[in-house]
C-alpha cells in the first residue's frame, strides 16, 4: 500500500492501520485486502462487480470497513455492495471513497449499496467522500443507497462529502417497517465549480416508523448544490427533514421539499433555511477575539463537524 492510498484510507475511513474486524479494501476496481470474521462474511459477487456482506444474527458491537480508493485517472468504477444484516445485530459499517487524480482524465466511482436490515438491529453506516489531486480534472462520485429497515430496527447514516468532488449525485431511498427508525445526517462542502445533488426518497410504511434527515451544506465560489427530499407517510409515522445551507460568493443552493401524507396519523415536517453566514454569529465570535475571516471559518467548521 503506498502513502497516497494510506492517506486516503485515513481520511475517508479513519483507518490508520489494518482495521479490526471484517474489511474489504478496494483500489481501482480490485480487492486490495479482505478479512472475514466468524460473524461477518464478505463474498465476491459472481454476476457483477461487487460484494455481499453477510452479518449473522445476534452479532453485537462489531464493525465492517469497506473503503474504496480510486487513485488513477481515466477510470470509471462501478460496484454493487449488498448488505444482509441478521436480526438483533448491532454493528458499525464504514464505507467511503477517496479519489486521487493527478492526471487530466476524469475518474469516477459509482457505488451501489443495498441494505437489508433485519429486526431489532442497530446499524450505523458512515460514508465519507473526498477528491484530491488535479483541480481541473473531474472527480465524480455517484453513491446510490437503498435501505430496507426492518421492524424495531434503527439505521443511522452519516454521509459526508469533504470537498474536491467535482460532481456528485447521491440517491438514497429507504423503506421503513413497523417501529423502524432512520436517522440521516448529510454534510456537503462544495467549492470552485463543483456540483452536488442529493435525492432522498423515504417510504414510511410501518406503524410508528420514524425518519429524521439533517442536511447541512456549504457551497462556496461558483459551486451548486441541490437537495430534494420526498417523504411519504402511509401509516402512523413521523418524518422530519431539516435542510440548512450556507452560501458564499456566487454559489447556489436549491432545496426542494416534498412531503406526502397518506394517513391522518402521519406527521411530516420539512424545514429549510439557506443564506450566508449569520452576521450575529460572526459578531459573537469577534467579541471573543477572532477576526472576521477566522470567525467565518470556525462557523463553517462547526456547521460541518
Amino acid at each position, binding site marked *: 500500500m503506498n502513502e497516497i492510498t494510506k492517506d486516503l484510507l485515513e481520511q475517508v475511513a479513519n483507518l490508520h492501520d489494518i482495521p479490526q474486524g471484517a474489511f474489504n479494501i478496494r483500489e481501482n476496481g480490485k480487492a486490495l485486502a479482505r478479512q472475514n470474521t466468524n460473524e461477518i462474511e464478505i463474498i465476491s459477487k459472481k454476476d457483477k462487480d461487487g460484494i455481499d456482506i453477510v452479518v449473522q444474527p445476534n452479532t453485537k458491537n462489531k464493525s465492517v470497513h469497506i473503503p474504496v480508493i480510486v487513485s488513477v485517472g481515466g477510470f470509471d468504477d462501478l460496484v454493487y455492495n449488498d448488505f444482509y444484516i441478521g436480526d438483533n445485530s448491532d454493528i458499525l459499517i464504514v464505507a467511503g471513497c477517496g479519489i486521487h487524480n493527478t492526471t487530466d482524465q476524469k475518474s469516477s466511482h459509482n457505488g451501489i449499496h443495498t441494505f437489508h436490515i433485519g429486526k431489532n438491529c442497530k446499524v450505523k453506516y458512515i460514508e465519507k467522500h473526498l477528491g484530491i489531486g488535479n483541480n481541473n480534472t473531474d472527480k465524480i462520485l455517484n453513491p446510490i443507497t437503498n435501505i430496507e429497515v426492518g421492524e424495531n430496527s434503527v439505521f443511522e447514516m452519516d454521509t459526508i462529502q469533504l470537498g474536491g468532488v467535482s460532481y456528485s449525485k447521491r440517491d438514497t431511498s429507504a423503506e421503513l417497517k413497523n417501529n423502524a427508525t432512520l436517522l440521516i445526517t448529510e454534510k456537503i462542502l462544495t467549492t470552485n465549480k463543483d456540483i452536488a445533488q442529493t435525492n432522498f426518497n423515504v417510504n414510511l410504511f410501518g406503524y410508528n416508523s420514524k425518519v429524521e434527515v439533517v442536511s*447541512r451544506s456549504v457551497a462556496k465560489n461558483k459551486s451548486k448544490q441541490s437537495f430534494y427530499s420526498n417523504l411519504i407517510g402511509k401509516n402512523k409515522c413521523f418524518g422530519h427533514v431539516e435542510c*440548512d445551507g450556507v452560501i458564499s460568493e456566487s454559489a447556489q443552493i436549491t432545496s426542494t421539499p416534498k412531503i406526502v401524507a397518506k394517513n391522518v396519523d402521519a406527521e411530516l415536517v420539512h424545514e429549510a433555511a439557506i443564506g450566508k453566514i*449569520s452576521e*450575529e*454569529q460572526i*459578531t*459573537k*465570535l*469577534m*467579541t*471573543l*477575539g*477572532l*477576526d*472576521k475571516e477566522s*470567525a467565518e471559518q*470556525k*462557523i463553517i*467548521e*462547526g*456547521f*460541518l*463537524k
Partner: protein
Amino acid sequence: MIELKNICYDAKDGNSKEILKDISLTFNENKITVITGPNGSGKSTLAKILMGILKPSSGEIWYNGKNITNYTIDQRAKLGFSFGFQQPITFKGLTVKDLLDIASNKKNTLSVACEYLSKVGLCAKDYINRQIDNKLSGGELKRIEIAMVLAKNGEVNIFDEPEAGIDLWSFEQLIKIFKEQNSTSIIISHQSKIIDIADRVILLKNGKVEHIGTKEQVMPLIEQQKCKKLKESEI
C-alpha cells in the same frame, strides 16, 4: 480607564431616530458600574457601542489614553474587552467547549473548561459537549454566555442583563462572581441586588444620562419613576 466623549447614535433604518444623545461618561479601572433605566432607554445600544458592535454617529471612545473609536470588535476584544449578550447568539454545530476555547484563546483542558461552567452553576459534564443551539434553555444559554466572558478573562467586562432568566440560586452565585472579578465591569441591569454591588450607578433615560451616583442616590430616583408609572396607569 474608558472615556465616552459626546456619543450620539441614530438608528439608520427608516426615519432616523436619535437613540443616544450626547453621552459622556468615564469608567474607572476595576470598578463596577451598573447601568439601569427603563426599557428602550438605550442601554444595550450603549453597551454595543462600547464593544464596537455599533458605530456611534458622532463622538469618541478612548481607552487608556488611546482613541479606539474606529477599532473593530475583534481589535477591542484583543485589548481586553468582552461582552455578554442580552440575547445569547446560537450556532449550529459549535459546542460549549469550542466557544470556551475561542474565548480563552487556547485549548482548555477538560478540568479548566469545567471550572468555568461550575462557576455559573452548570454541571460541566452535561454541557461541555452540547451544541450552543436552541435546544438549550434560555437560562442555560445565558449562563454559558457568562461562562464565556469569564473564560476570556478580560480587562473590561460588559454584561447586558446577565440575570435575565437565571434562577434564584444561581443568581446569588452570579453576584459573587461579579464581586470577585478583577476587572472593569459594566453591567446593565434592572435588579436591585446587582445595583447593590455597584460602585456607581448610571440611570439612562430616553438616550440620555439622567443621573450618575451611588446606589443610595440613584435608587430613590428609580423608585420615584416606578411610582410615577403606577400613578399614570391609574388614571
